[in-house]
């Protein structure tokens, strides 16, 4: 039986181009903003020579909602629901990133249990976000059943989040100083059984894809970003690690007590789409391990506080508001005029897409002077031309999928 592999040289294969009867005829193609393979409202202006991409220009901004300005007009605490809608596949992660920046600025200590819950939430959000990456990229490359399998698992996560926060998406359950609610035993048991089963599921995903001929051919040596390029284009997260740079903010600048957890940072060697895929799959395994460790810690710290006791920023207990004049005043003060001390703070967290950073500047009033969001997705979008130019048009789908961005965050 013939086992001929379809191969073409990486980069523009000029010899092949000269044989191409269509060579020399440049076609302008506008892909998106409404295109299923662009993962959101991204427009790509492509100049094609036959099937080869000559020039490519991504155009962002179709989902621009002015989040940064909204933060400046809404005030500190009211911006939390808006952070959910940045990278809407991992709302709790964005909540936590924003809360960490505010806590840094105000110098608030989050109680131990609150931090453990945050780590747990961040890791399951990461798993959910990577599942979306895997499902959507696979369906773009033709593996339809993969999409259903990953979404089935993601649905389980969303059910757990629903049981914890009351919403499937847009959870808004993080507050300045901790998280809104405690995780009870029932939920812990539910999470544990999910996480234990999930390990096997990741293996199944790998069985579906890693050795699959179509997946292999369409990802291997496609969209290769070298180490230097990745650094030069400010890529972070799995895209940077796929190119072989070991950089993970959870290790490099630990926050929320990540230094106490044991996990490995997966790193690729070549930097192609296949490496990025492998890195993300391995990250799901590591996240599962971290989440299980966090559950173990939660068992030990049961009964602890989840919100810092700080009457400048945290709403007092409801029962006390009814009985104590002091607490009622705090309630009014915090709701109407929560102000953070003068100064500025930047906090970056390792989100599923890369370094998600919040830079906040306060002049001591209840409205931020500036709130800048460093969206990792924007940098990932910028890298598309770098790797797609000179490649076949059909490779672009694999490249877009593997760079993994969410337009809600890119456009803010």
């Amino acid at each position: 039986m013939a086992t001929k592999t379809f191969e073409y040289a990486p980069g523009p294969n000029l010899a092949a181009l000269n044989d191409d009867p269509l060579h020399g005829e440049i076609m302008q193609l506008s892909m998106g903003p409404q295109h299923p393979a662009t993962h959101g409202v991204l427009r790509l202006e492509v100049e094609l020579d036959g099937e080869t991409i000559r020039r490519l220009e991504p155009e962002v901004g179709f989902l621009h909602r002015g989040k940064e300005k909204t933060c400046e007009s809404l005030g500190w605490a009211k911006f939390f629901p808006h952070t959910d809608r940045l990278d809407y596949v991992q709302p709790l992660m964005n909540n936590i990133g924003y809360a960490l920046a505010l806590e840094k600025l105000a110098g608030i200590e989050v109680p131990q249990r609150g931090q453990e819950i945050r780590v747990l939430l961040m890791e399951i959000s990461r798993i959910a976000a990577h599942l979306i990456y895997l499902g959507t990229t696979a369906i773009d490359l033709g593996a339809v059943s993969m999409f259903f399998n990953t979404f089935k698992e993601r649905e389980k996560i969303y059910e757990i989040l629903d049981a914890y926060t009351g919403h499937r998406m847009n959870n808004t359950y993080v507050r300045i100083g901790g998280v809104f609610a405690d995780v009870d035993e029932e939920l812990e048991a539910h999470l544990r059984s999910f996480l234990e089963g999930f390990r096997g599921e990741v293996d199944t995903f790998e069985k579906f894809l890693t050795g699959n001929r179509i997946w292999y051919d369409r990802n291997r040596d496609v969209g290769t970003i070298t180490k230097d390029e990745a650094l030069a284009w400010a890529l972070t997260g799995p895209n940077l690690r796929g190119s072989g740079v070991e950089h993970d903010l959870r290790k490099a600048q630990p926050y929320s007590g990540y230094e106490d957890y044991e996990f490995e940072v997966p790193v690729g060697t070549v930097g192609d789409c296949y490496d990025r895929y492998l890195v993300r799959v391995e990250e799901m395994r590591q996240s599962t391990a971290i989440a299980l460790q966090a559950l173990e810690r939660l068992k030990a710290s049961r009964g602890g506080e989840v919100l810092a006791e700080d009457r400048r920023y945290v709403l007092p207990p409801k029962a006390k508001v009814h009985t104590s004049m002091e607490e009622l005043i705090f309630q009014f003060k915090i709701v109407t005029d929560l102000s953070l001390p003068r100064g500025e703070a930047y906090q970056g967290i390792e989100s599923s897409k890369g370094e998600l950073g919040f830079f906040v500047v306060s002049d001591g009033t209840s409205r931020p002077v500036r709130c800048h969001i460093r969206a990792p997705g924007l940098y990932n979008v910028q890298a598309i031309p770098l790797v797609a130019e000179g490649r076949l048009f059909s490779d672009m789908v694999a490249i877009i999928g593997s760079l993994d961005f969410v337009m809600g965050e890119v456009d803010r």
Partner: protein
Amino acid sequence: MVIVKRKDLSLAERLWLPEIGRALSMTLRAIFKPKVTRQYPEEPLPTTAVTRGQPRLRILEDGENLACVSCGLCEAACPAYAITIDGHETERFIEREPEAFEIDMLRCILCGFCEEACPKDAIFMSNELELADFTRAALVYDIDKLKRPTAALTGRMDYFYKVTNRWRNSSSTS
């Protein structure tokens, strides 16, 4: 640091046929697996006390007056500017009540900040989730559409009290 393993395809993986056979067997096996799809409109979504549905106003135990004193805190806390309140004085022991209380359900993002802000336990997130109508005006809910007897909200109230019972070890109030 772990370096991810890039493995090369084996001969069996390079040939198309075994893969096709494997894919078909997976499809066949999936037929007998339990179904996970939810038949949504026929099978309503399960709701619990944790569910954050649309905000509703609580009627006091006396059955007619609202618990709300139109202090305006929920209006101030709402990140979507969905709430509009107009208050007036009454002859009752609690001397204030809302004359008009409107929540624009098209703006409301069900965040629950109003519930957290209210000092009088007057507004709670109910378990009512469905929201559809033919005109925009019909989705601006007034008091008549928003009020619910205390009994309908007790589950949520209990949950909310349990959750906000924080700083259990502290004794001072300031």
